[in-house]
């Protein structure tokens, strides 16, 4: 059964794409995470801290 599950394609490797990939991956579904930039992370990786907790973004 496990082997017959279809994969999921995620387009965009920012915070939304990463979260979706982690959720699906944890459910046992194989994910292809496509990002056009050389590394994933998106805009969030460019930020220093994030509101409203002022936590580090990476």
């Amino acid at each position, binding site marked *: 059964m496990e082997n017959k599950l*279809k994969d*999921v394609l995620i387009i965009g490797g920012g915070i939304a794409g990463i979260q979706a990939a982690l959720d699906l991956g944890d459910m046992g*579904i194989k994910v292809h995470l496509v990002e056009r930039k050389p590394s994933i*992370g998106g805009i969030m990786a460019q930020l220093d801290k994030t509101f409203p907790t002022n936590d580090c973004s990476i």
Partner: protein
Amino acid sequence: MLDVGRHPNVNILAYSEVESLKGDIGNFTATVRKKARYVDEDICNACGDCLVKCPVKKIPDDFDMGLKNRKAVYQYFSQGIPAVMTIDPDNCIYLKKGKCGVCKTKCVKGAIDYEQKDKILELDVGAVIVATGLDVFDPTPLTQYGYGKMKNVITGLEYERLINATGPTGGNLLRPSDGEMAHKVAYVQCVGSRDFNYCNYCSSVCCMYAIKDAMLGREHEPDSESYIFHTDFRNVGKWFQKYEIRGKEEYGINYIRGRVADITEDENQNPILWYEDTETREVKSLNVEMAVLSTAAMAAKGSSELAKKLGVNLSEHGFVAAGLPYPSDTNVPGIFACGFCIGPADIPESVAQASAAANRAAEVVFLGEKKKTA
């Protein structure tokens, strides 16, 4: 980011783009172009030996908003995943003229491969999630703010890089004009947002990020002054109102209700902000050392072309039309969307939407075609 990089079920295809998508819910075939990095991803460990002697030095670094230069062989950012170098074919002398090859001689692992070609991958997938995010608005057309002409007028994302310890100034808030520390900083809200000529909507994240930026500025330089010029604060979210109050009471940020009409410059390249204080109904000016434009955020460049390839409808502002009957459903069964690509959203909201989209996609995968989405 690290977690996803290590996850056994996640195949990261960075530096890649979707070329086309065929098929139907439960049975899509995606064609993905994996662009040539000219570096073998399996061998490279991003040690950086290759870039030390690269003679091409003056390429504006995209990640650092052009505030720093990079070389023709580069790592997109230091903690980037996958942790590999990339050669920029538009600027590499070897790839353009066939001469140089310095990076190849410096790489002890033999990871540089000038012959590498783009790879076309065919992926069979059951569902697709669009999470293409945003690009920031370029404020150059708003000539009254002088962005691009006045060196000490910068955008919010440029500020983020300046104040970041891994950024071009090592986390010091140095003015672009003379490299001096900026002690008096103004933040200008609604630059391009809520503007009928440009983005006729509220970008929703700028009020909060301006407060955050001002807090960080004060943390770095406790004797500095911060001014936020806002149309009206739209801090809607859990703990957001408290954050706004904290900014004022704990950090001493000055909130001024009024849209900045014009920015001029004095002889020391200090920006002068002209505005109407809507509480006193007076036209005033404020001389600062640096002005930060809280620029609008819009659907990412190229997202409309992608939407066409997928057959997904867009809304009036170019965002992916999602929401009916479930928040992450698009008009195409089996294609879901989340994050800023469906409309302005901050990080917590993007994360919540992403989990919703992941669950909808999982339903398709687990239940197969038995459960149609629309």
